[in-house]
C-alpha cells in the first residue's frame, strides 16, 4: 500500500515538474501587445484585420505587435472594462456602452466619438431577419414577428448591443407605422412574448437559432446573418429584408487611461486609424459589414439589400436618451418584458 501511495505522489510531482519545464521555455521577447475588447460578431473580421495590421505595422516601424482579442456581448464587455479589464482599444456594438465606460471610469474623454471620422464607426451594419429555408412562417416584415405562433430569437438587450439595435429597430418600425406610443408598446410587448430564450450575446442567439434549431426567425446583424448562411449552408436559411431598419454604427475608441499607463498609445491609435484605409474597408465588406468608404461601398453595392434606414439620433434622440428610456432598470423594456 505504501508503494502505491509513493507511486501516486511521484506521478503528481512529475506532473508538476514537467509543467514547470513547459512554462520555463516561454520566450521572453519584448513584443508590444494590445488588447482589443470587442463584441460578438466581429470575430472573423478582426481575425483577418489583425494579421493585416501586424504586417503593416512591422513594415512601417519595424516593431512586432501582438493583438489580443476578447469577444462577448457588448454590454458584458463594457462591464468588464469598467471592472478593470485592461483594454487598449474597445470596438463595441454601440456608442452607449463606450459612454458608460467614459462616465464611470473617466478613462475616456466624454467627446470620444468625435475623435475619429464618421462618429468613430469605421463600418456600419443593420438588422435583418434570418428565417429557415422557404420561410415556412411567411415572415415578411416586423409586424409578422408579433403574430401568434411565431418564435423569435433575439439576445438580451441588457447585455447585448445587437439586441438593443434589434429592439430599437422594431420600435422605430412600429412608431412609423402607427405613430402611437400605446400601439407601439403593445407591439413590442407581443413581440417579446414570442421570444422563448434571451441569450447574453448575439453569437449565442445565432447558435440557438442555427445549431440548436430553435425559433422561426432570428433578429440578426446583417453581417451575422450572411455569415450564418455562408458557414452553414444557403440550403438551410434565407435572409428576409424588412421594409425599414436601423442604421447600426458600432464605434471604436482608444481607452486613454489604459494606453497612457501601458505606453501603447501610438500603436493603439494606429490600429484604429487603419480601419479606415481602403484595404481594411474592403475587409469589412468581405465580412458583410457596410463599409464607410463610398468607393468600396459602390464596388460591393449589389451584395447589400436595399433597406431604408433610420438612425438612433433622429428617431430616439441619441443613445443616451434611448438607453435611459428603454434599457435602464425599470425602463420600457423591463416594463414590457416583465408583464409578458
Amino acid at each position, binding site marked *: 500500500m505504501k508503494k502505491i*501511495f509513493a507511486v*501516486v505522489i511521484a506521478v503528481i510531482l512529475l*506532473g*508538476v515538474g514537467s*509543467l514547470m519545464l*513547459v*512554462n520555463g521555455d516561454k520566450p521572453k521577447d519584448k513584443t508590444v501587445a494590445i*488588447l482589443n475588447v470587442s463584441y*460578438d460578431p466581429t*470575430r*472573423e473580421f478582426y481575425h483577418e484585420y489583425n494579421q493585416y495590421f501586424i504586417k503593416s505595422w512591422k513594415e512601417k516601424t519595424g516593431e512586432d505587435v501582438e493583438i*489580443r*482579442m*476578447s*469577444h*462577448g456581448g457588448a454590454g458584458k464587455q463594457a462591464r*468588464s472594462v*469598467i*471592472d*478593470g*479589464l*485592461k483594454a487598449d482599444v474597445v470596438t463595441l456594438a454601440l456608442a452607449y456602452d463606450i459612454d458608460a465606460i467614459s462616465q*464611470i*471610469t473617466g478613462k475616456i474623454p466624454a467627446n470620444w466619438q468625435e475623435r475619429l471620422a464618421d462618429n468613430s464607426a469605421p463600418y456600419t451594419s443593420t438588422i435583418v431577419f434570418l428565417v429557415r429555408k422557404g420561410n415556412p412562417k411567411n415572415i415578411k416584415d416586423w409586424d409578422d414577428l408579433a403574430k401568434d405562433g411565431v418564435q423569435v430569437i433575439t439576445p438580451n438587450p441588457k447585455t447585448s448591443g445587437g439586441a438593443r439595435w434589434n429592439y430599437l429597430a422594431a420600435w422605430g418600425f412600429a412608431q412609423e407605422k402607427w405613430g402611437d406610443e400605446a400601439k407601439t408598446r403593445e407591439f413590442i410587448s407581443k413581440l417579446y412574448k414570442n421570444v422563448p430564450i434571451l441569450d447574453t450575446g448575439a*453569437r*449565442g442567439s445565432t*447558435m440557438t437559432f442555427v445549431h440548436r434549431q430553435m425559433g422561426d426567425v432570428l433578429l440578426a446583424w446583417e453581417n451575422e446573418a450572411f455569415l450564418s448562411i455562408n*458557414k*452553414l449552408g444557403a440550403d438551410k436559411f434565407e435572409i428576409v429584408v424588412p421594409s425599414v431598419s436601423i442604421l447600426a454604427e458600432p464605434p471604436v475608441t482608444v481607452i486613454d487611461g489604459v494606453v497612457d499607463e501601458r505606453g501603447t498609445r501610438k500603436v493603439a491609435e494606429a490600429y484604429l486609424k487603419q480601419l479606415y484605409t481602403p484595404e481594411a474597408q474592403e475587409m469589412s465588406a468581405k465580412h458583410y459589414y457596410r463599409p464607410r468608404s463610398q468607393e468600396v461601398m459602390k464596388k460591393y453595392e449589389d451584395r447589400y439589400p436595399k433597406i431604408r434606414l433610420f438612425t438612433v439620433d433622429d428617431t430616439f434622440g441619441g443613445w443616451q436618451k434611448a438607453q435611459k428610456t428603454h434599457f435602464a432598470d425599470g425602463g420600457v423594456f423591463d416594463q414590457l418584458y416583465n408583464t409578458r
Partner: protein
Amino acid sequence: MQSLDINCSWNIRFFHWFLIFSALSFLAFFLFMPIALVFNLAFQEGISVYLSAITEPDAKAAIKLTLLVAVIAVPLNIVFGLAASWAITKFDFMGKSLLITLIDLPFSVSPVISGLIYILLFGANSVLAPVLKTYDIQIIFAVPGIVLATLFVTFPFVARQLIPLMQEQGIEEEEAAIALGANGFQTFFFVTLPNIKWALLYGVLLCNARAMGEFGAVSIVSGHIRGITSTVPLQVEILYNEYNFTAAFAVASLLAFLALITLCLKSFLEIKFSHEINVSNG
C-alpha cells in the same frame, strides 16, 4: 393465498428489474451518450484535424493555464483541507459548527456569485482598487483571479472527504502516540496521515476534476482574452461560438478524458480501499 404470494413476488421482481432498467437507461441517455457524442464529433474529421485542434497555440495556452491553475489550487486545498479537518475532528473549540458551515459555503453558492465576489473585491471600483493600482497588481481578468475563483469553488472537496472519516477514527491513536512521547508532527505524519491517505487521495481527485473543469466562476473573472486568460472550458466555448465545432469538441474531449480517468481512479480507490475512504462502507 398461494396465488397471491406468487403475484406479490412477481410484482416485486418486476419492480426490481424495472428500477434497474430505468436507472441504466437514464445513465445511458444522460451520461454515456453525450460522452460518446463528444468523442464522435471530435474525431469526425479524422485524427490529424483532431491533433492540430488540440496543439493549436490558443488551445495549448488554454491547456497550460488549466494545468497551472490545478497545480496551484489543488495543493493549497490539500493543505487547507488537512488543517481544517484535523482541527475540526481532533480538537474542541468555540465556533466549530460555524467553521463546518463555512467550509460548505462554496457548495451552496452559485459559481457565478463566486466569480462576482472577486470582481466586487478586486475590481477597478472596489475598495482594494487603489492599493492594487499602486503596486500594479492585476488580479481579476488575469491568472490570479482565475486561480482564486477556482480555489473558492474547490474549497470543500478535500475537507468534506476527510471530516467524516477522521471523526469516526476518533483520537485514541493520536493520544496513544503523544503518551508515548511523539511530538505533533510525528503524530500527524506517522499516525494520522497513514490512516487517511486514501480518503485524501480521493478528495484530491474530485478537487482536481472540478478545478480543471470549472466554467461559471472562471468565466466571470477571466475577461476571455484568447490565449491569455482562457482555460480549457472557456476555450471550448470560444471555439464553439466561432463555428469551429470539430475543434470545440476536440478540446472538450480532453475534459472528457479527464473525467474518464478520474472516474477510473475513483472506482479503483473505492473498490480497493472502501473502508478507508468512507465511514459508511466500513
